[in-house]
């Protein structure tokens, strides 16, 4: 961590690390939360993708989610660059850049939906 006494600015590298930590935390928490939920043993498995094992679900999710995550990370990278220069704390800059990225992604998603 870098020194902060009001006059200092957040460092880009530690801000980015804080932001990446948020992504890791949320993904790990979602995985842990869903892994503890028991499913019914007698489900109808005739339809495709209706009965995936946890590993298969994870693979599918990674495949579908990778482009979204990549887009989010690009926005986060840009926002971190902007915020780290203006804010006094790396922790604040990294956290706000993740929140800002989610907001930008939500607005972009809504605009895309409206334009379709």
């Amino acid at each position, binding site marked *: *961590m870098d*020194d*902060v*006494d009001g006059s200092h600015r957040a460092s880009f590298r530690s801000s980015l690390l*804080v932001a990446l*930590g*948020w992504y890791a*935390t*949320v993904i*790990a*928490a*979602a995985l*842990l*939360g*869903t892994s*503890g*939920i*028991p*499913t*019914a*043993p007698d489900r109808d498995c005739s339809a495709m993708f209706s009965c995936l094992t946890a590993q298969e679900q994870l693979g599918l999710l990674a495949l579908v989610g990778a482009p979204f995550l990549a887009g989010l990370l690009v926005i986060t990278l840009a926002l971190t660059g902007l915020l780290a220069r203006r804010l006094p*704390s790396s*922790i*604040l800059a990294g*956290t706000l850049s993740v929140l800002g990225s989610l907001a930008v992604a939500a607005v972009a998603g809504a605009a895309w939906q409206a334009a379709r």
Partner: protein
Amino acid sequence: MKRLGLGLLFLGWLYGVPFLLIAGLIRRTSSPYLATHAAARSFGATTDTILVTALVLNLALPAAGLLLARLVRDRFWAYHFGWSLLGTALIFVAVGMAGNAATAPLIGWTPADQGPAPQVDQCIPISGGRGCPGG
């Protein structure tokens, strides 16, 4: 060394509390398959433990950190822990809003189970309707 300990305490709050809250709220909003009532109660109890731990740590970690940072006169971490109390308040507000949106209480809730319905073993006579055997 002191700074490292305070830093770990801060990161524990920053990432640990949202981690527990997300995992707990996913469990709370899920509809798990639970064969017996005992299994449902145990599932609910684990969810409660996760959520209560998150809420307690949300206040305890920043308060302890602020106290320790003041004691060792660490301006950097005292500044961060001081501001983190604002985050604590925001998290409490967010959890309160989630609790208001839910129909059942957030903590102390037992999910539905697939066990047999409890049998009615008491006969209540209804006047003009049914009588009870032996009386």
